[in-house]
């Protein structure tokens, strides 16, 4: 069920207006968001006027873009002019940007209808959305469970039918893991495929924006419309042209799927089972499976936490209370003001990572941590390069387990870090990966898998994902939100 093309058809055939559609979502958000906690800032007025503009176009007989008039949402770390952008941190409370992120500019031009900004772990640091200063987003399959993180709000909104699609960001799994926890599709594009301009930085060399949708086709459509070179982002690829949509249905028989054995270690039995079943499904579609070792993956987790925290410690230095956002009320000097603003404005997880990052970059520790991690990053990149010499895509689980109950992550940060083991290698190597449902656990929570591609082969992984989706039909709609 590809929602966007269906809705586009309804709009152009005047079965429903964009305003009516938008109002349905607004109504659903007003009813269900209290329980789901998917949205943290709402922009209904802007949404309705965008919808009206699209309706006017339709009425005048103009052709509209496939994404025009479709209600959607952005993670709260993407800059939206005039609409609060807080990264779910107290330190950015009240901050209304004066400029739009490039992804939002391009979607807005196409007539996208922004319902609001969605919940996330504070500054995208977390795997359960529980470090948000607004409280956690909940899993629409079962609200006792986390939606995952950090893009938990987007997953909850899309999985809970409170938005047609969402843009999330993925630094170490933040799109893929919540997508898998909530039973939807999430694409983490190649580093450099989508502009980061306007994405509030957590770890600049790892961050990437991508779509969260209820179908592979929708993911392809949204990705094709946000990808491409942006002169404002020097790290975006000037030569890349996204054309995943038209390649979705290519034949995959005879193609090869690689499986690194390290990815299959330490999994919950039901996750391992679902992953193996997915491989059988691909075999039935004519793909070949090859297994190999990738010992470098063992370093991925420490490498990720060292590099991400190092970059974060620098990226987050700008929050000092002087120019925007939260500022301590009582202070004695500039120094005192900055200290108090940060002490009061940042949450525990953010402070933990700033401290870690500052430590690994410090004189005397730099070589032992940061430099070593950089070298190992090179080894991981090389290992993936080698792997793609013998396969077209790689298949791996998204997490060793399914969504866990609320409150569990907070109690044990180290165990939570470890649950990122399957997702971080892709960010370290700058590769694209798509997460999609491949089964259901005994407790009813969705199990996800990811298909990993070589750089800028989004077309290939989306093609494989589409074929799998068509063959299995595992997408289930949750009992929330808009019923169409």
């Amino acid at each position: 069920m590809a929602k966007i093309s269906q809705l586009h058809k309804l709009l152009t055939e005047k079965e429903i207006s964009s305003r009516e559609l938008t109002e349905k979502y607004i109504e659903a958000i007003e009813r269900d968001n209290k329980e789901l906690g998917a949205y943290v800032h709402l922009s209904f007025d802007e949404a309705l006027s965008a919808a009206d503009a699209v309706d006017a176009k339709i009425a005048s007989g103009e052709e509209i873009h496939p994404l025009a008039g479709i209600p959607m949402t952005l993670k709260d770390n993407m800059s939206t002019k005039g609409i609060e952008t807080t990264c779910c941190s107290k330190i950015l409370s009240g901050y209304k940007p004066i400029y739009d992120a490039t992804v939002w500019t391009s979607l807005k031009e196409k007539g996208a209808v922004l319902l609001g900004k969605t919940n996330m772990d504070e500054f995208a640091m977390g795997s359960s959305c529980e470090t948000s200063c607004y409280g956690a987003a909940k899993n629409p399959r079962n609200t006792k469970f986390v939606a995952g993180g950090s893009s938990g709000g987007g997953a909850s909104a899309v999985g809970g039918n409170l938005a047609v699609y969402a843009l999330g960001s993925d630094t170490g799994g933040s799109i893929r893991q919540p997508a898998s926890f909530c039973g939807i599709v999430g694409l983490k594009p190649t580093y450099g495929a989508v502009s980061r301009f306007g994405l509030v930085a957590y770890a600049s060399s790892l961050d990437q924006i991508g779509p969260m949708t209820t179908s592979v086709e929708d993911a392809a459509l949204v990705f094709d419309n946000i990808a491409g070179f942006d002169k404002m982002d020097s790290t975006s690829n000037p030569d890349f042209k996204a054309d995943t949509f038209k390649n979705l249905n290519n034949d995959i028989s005879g193609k090869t799927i690689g499986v690194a054995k390290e990815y299959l270690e330490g999994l919950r039995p039901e996750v391992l089972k679902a992953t193996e079943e997915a491989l059988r499904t691909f075999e039935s579609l004519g793909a070949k499976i090859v297994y190999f070792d990738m010992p470098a993956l063992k370093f991925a987790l420490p490498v990720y936490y060292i590099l991400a925290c190092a970059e974060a410690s620098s990226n987050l230095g700008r929050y000092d209370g002087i120019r925007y956002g939260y500022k301590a009320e009582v202070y004695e000097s500039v120094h005192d003001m900055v200290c108090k603003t940060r002490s009061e404005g940042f949450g525990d997880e953010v402070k933990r990572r700033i401290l870690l990052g500052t430590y690994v970059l410090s004189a005397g520790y730099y070589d032992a941590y940061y430099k070593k991690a950089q070298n190992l990053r090179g080894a991981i990149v090389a290992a993936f390069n080698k792997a793609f010499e013998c396969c077209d895509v790689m298949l791996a689980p998204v997490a060793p387990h399914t969504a866990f109950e609320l409150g569990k992550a907070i109690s044990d940060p180290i165990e939570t870090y470890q649950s990122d083991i399957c997702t971080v290698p892709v960010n370290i190597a700058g590769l694209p990966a798509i997460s999609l449902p491949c089964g259901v656990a005994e407790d009813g929570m969705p199990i996800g898998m990811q298909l990993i591609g070589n750089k800028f082969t989004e077309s290939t992984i989306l093609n494989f994902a589409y074929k799998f989706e068509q063959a299995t039909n595992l997408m289930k709609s949750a009992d929330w939100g808009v019923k169409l």
Partner: protein
Amino acid sequence: MKYELVAGFETHIELATKTKIFCSCTTEFGGDPNTHCCPVCIGLPGTLPKLNRKVVDYAIMAGLATNCEIARVSKMDRKNYCYPDLPKAYQISQFDKPLCEHGYVELSTGKKIRLARIHIEEDAGKLIHKKGDTYVDYNRGGVPLIEIVSEPDIRSIDEAKEYVEKLQQVMRYIGISDCKMQEGSMRCDVNISVRPVGSDTFGTRTEIKNMNSITNIAKAMEYEFERQCDLLESGGKVIQETLRYDDATGETSSMRGKEDAHDYRYFRDPDLVTILLTDEEIEAVKNSLPELPTEKAKRYVEEFAITDKDAQNLTKYRRISEYFDKASEGLKNPKTVANFMIGQIFSRLATEADKEIFDIKTTPEQLRELVKLIEDGKIKNNLAKTTLDKMLESGKGAMDFISEDDMGGVDEGALTEFCKAAIEANPNAVADYKGGKEKALMALLGNVMKQSRGKADAAQVTAKLKELIG
């Protein structure tokens, strides 16, 4: 004990690009606070820097003009520190892979002050303290800078002054900065230490920050040299620290000690890509460079037999040397042009600033025309001199003041007549000359010149007078 001064410079120079280093805001000096700003240069969350290619070109020019090697591969790093004038809490700079390395600046003595490196970076904003409150102005934030780091090769205050002047001269010549120390487009930090004469190890150094004039640099160094010498003489030790120089008291005082030194936690800026340069690109920048003052001066001395001092004067500012080059084009003896410029034109330019601007009414082509008349034997030097004065006043050409008659010269017969008349009219001068006063002849010469309306040749006249007086 006798001590020797050892100093090295860190010089920041603002580049004269139209736009800032990472965004398209203007670099213009001044402006109402925070009006030359955008989301990028005030570091709003989510913004990304984009390197202005012109900045790289200008830095390469600076490197080539100071004999540096240009790196084919370099990168930008983050220098992390927290201060209200630095909106991202890090300055984008270059740490271990600077654009230029291993250069030198040659002093007039021929001594080379080695340059360790030249790198590019962004400037910070400015704090404004007003009525007990502090405000921040980010107009200057993101203005491109180069930092030129010398080796500790400077051994005297004169060398220090000349080093700074030379840098200033070269950077202005190649047009990458106006290097105005007062406006802060050139700022110097001096690392200074002392050691017993003859010693080959370095003493503990102090760093004097942010000096804004050559006079202050000299005064601060003098003070600091004395202070360090006195300290050592009295059995004390120099502490490694960062100092500020107080213009009013003429003293240095401590800003922070070694233990308060920042740990900048440098790392590569992941928002910017590697700077790759090809030989062709560097060659293209090289070809765009004007002839540099040192080479120019050498050429003037060698090719035109101009004295070293005059050559220095003619090459001190780019506009002067360009004027000279243009005015001498096609002439047999450019030295005549040099003499006119240094003698008559320079005397009309009261200050160094006037000389640098070199705004005069006479065009180089007009001066060339005048000198050509001398070279062709049509007019004599004296007439040329008075004509040039009139030209400089009015902006008119030589031919507006010289008649056909003037160019006729003075024939032998007329010259003899003029000389005889002069001798007759000045018996006292003749007597003085005969009595051994060589100078007395000048009065007679003046008389002849007056009679010939400046057309007579002074050497010819002198010879004729001597002949007639006997």
